[in-house]
């Protein structure tokens, strides 16, 4: 039996639910050395800013149990280079592009949405709400305040081409992820991506100094999967009609199944791309096998399965 793998996220049709997570696959070029980038659902590109950004000082990463801490600080060449170099490369290979954007302020988000909308062939815009919020105390992100996050989403929505789906990328370490999700949906997000990295820290026990420069970093990898699945589950329960791209520690096809059962319509592979450059194609294969072994005719039949048969929350 050949399962139908197609999925739909906020008006975006994907051939299958396996996508890459923003910042964990560049724009697909490097990973395309290991598998056909057009074969997966989509590539979510690294969050692009208006201007070039040099990012944070090194050391930028530390390994932690079943995870890693990182702090790259949105290093990138800026939207011009992205639109001239990276996006055309990806589209020319037949890849689908979810373009992640990161603004230094609400206004920049609008400008980015406008610029991305002017380009052809983009599948969706993903709004990275884990960016420093200039209107909040230092260290806070837009996502930390549902109303600030909603303002960003609203701005993006109003500047983006009306047929371009806008996804809001949520974080788990916020006061209330369901409230954040609801605020973004009210601001007319077409879908939600969750979760971003979780703020954490490690101390290098050789030097007794913080292991990544600046102290705090973002935790990713399988360690955070239960947090991510919990967020997807709770948000899907509260907003069952809103499509979700689930992510956080996906390593195998079974993990894709787990996220979809919790309520995701598509699932992103992030940190695992670092440790296993052909992960996306492997995960897609494993997922397909797992789906068929369980007798599902359609991937979409799994979405939200963990909520059925009367599960409480």
């Amino acid at each position, binding site marked *: 039996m050949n399962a139908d793998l197609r999925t739909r996220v906020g008006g975006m049709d994907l051939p299958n639910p396996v996508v890459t997570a923003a*910042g*964990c*696959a*560049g724009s697909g070029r*490097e*990973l*395309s*050395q*290991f*598998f*056909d980038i057009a074969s997966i659902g989509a590539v979510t590109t*690294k969050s692009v800013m208006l*201007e*070039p*950004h*040099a*990012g*944070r*000082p*090194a*050391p*930028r*990463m530390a*390994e932690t*149990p*079943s*995870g*890693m801490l*990182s702090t*790259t600080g949105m*290093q*990138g*060449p*800026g939207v*011009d*280079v992205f639109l*001239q*170099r990276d996006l055309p490369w990806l589209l020319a290979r037949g890849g689908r592009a979810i373009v992640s954007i990161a603004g230094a302020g609400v206004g920049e988000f609008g400008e980015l949405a406008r610029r991305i909308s002017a380009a052809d062939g983009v599948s969706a815009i993903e709004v990275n709400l884990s960016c420093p919020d200039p209107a909040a105390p230092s260290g806070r992100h837009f996502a930390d305040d549902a109303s600030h996050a909603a303002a960003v989403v609203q701005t993006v929505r109003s500047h983006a081409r009306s047929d371009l789906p806008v996804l809001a990328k949520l974080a788990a370490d916020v006061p209330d992820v369901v409230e954040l999700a609801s605020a973004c949906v009210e601001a007319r997000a077409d879908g939600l991506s969750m979760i971003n990295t979780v703020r954490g820290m490690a101390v290098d026990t050789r030097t007794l100094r913080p292991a990544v*420069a600046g102290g705090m970093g973002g935790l990713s*990898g*399988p360690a955070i999967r239960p947090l991510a699945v919990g967020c997807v589950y709770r948000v899907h329960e509260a907003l069952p009609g809103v499509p979700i791209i689930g992510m956080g520690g996906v390593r195998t096809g079974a993990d894709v199944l787990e996220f979809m059962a919790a309520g995701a319509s598509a699932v992103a592979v992030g*940190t*695992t*791309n*670092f*440790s*296993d*450059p*052909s992960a996306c194609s492997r995960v897609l294969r494993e997922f397909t096998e797992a789906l068929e072994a369980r007798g599902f005719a359609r991937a979409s039949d799994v979405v939200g399965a963990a909520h059925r048969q009367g599960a409480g929350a």
Partner: protein
Amino acid sequence: MSDNGPVQVRCPVLNVRRVDAYYAITVVAPGIAERFRSGQFVSVAVGGDHSSTLLRRPFAIHDVKPDYGGTVEFLFSVRGTGTAWLSERRSRDLLDVVGPLGRPFPLPREPVNCVLVGGGSGSAPLFPLAQSLRRRGCRVDFVLGGASADRVFSAITARRIAETAAFTTDDGSFGTRGRVTDVLGRVIEECRSDAVYACGPMPMLRAVTAVAGSHGVPVQVAVEETMACGTGICMTCVIPVVGEDGITRMVRSCVDGPVFRGEQVRFDDVGTIPFDALGAPGWKGSSAARAAESARDIA
């Protein structure tokens, strides 16, 4: 997917040898062996499928041989969890290896005199380099250093394949007591070196670059930054490097390196974002510089 890019293979371990304080693992990996050029490295998954240790460990390729379709050897000393695990591998175990990764050492067109400087495990990539250089008719001299005698990698091979080989150890247990840079100037003079190649820890590369500079000799350095992916997608391995155009960029040492021209690495600013780096806080490139940037990046 691509013919000269890296490949990911599950390859059998041919053997694990112990040499002084380090280990040499040879794996059967024809796809990597055939693509290899000296200076490139492999990254190896450690700990097995259910390990809590997610990230691959990068190791310079020390040798490739045609046996069994193509074998690849790397050397390492046990440092932490990953190398401890690797040291326990046995023949026929499978290793998940990605490679060859990174930009190789550029080779001179002419048969010039080259001195190869290695610190600790940084000596490893210099051996295949020495062979490539000698095939081109270059003279090769070695300067190898380490904390102690057992930390100087492959001293015997160095003696065998090079015109001269000088050794230094911090504790004086082998060769000259001191650092590679304590003898490098003399070696450059005596061997009339035209080029320096170096690999090792950042402070050593910085000192080697300074010595080479003071002798007016160009130097290629291979850096060993911590790397989460090794393939260019994570942006955790960046160092500040000055481009041909004079602009400093935070470049990825895994794909834009690990080999750089020594003079272009801003050693003093490693671990920082220099204020004049492209995209540094407050940085405002002229619109001309930015136009150049996008043209360059597209090229």
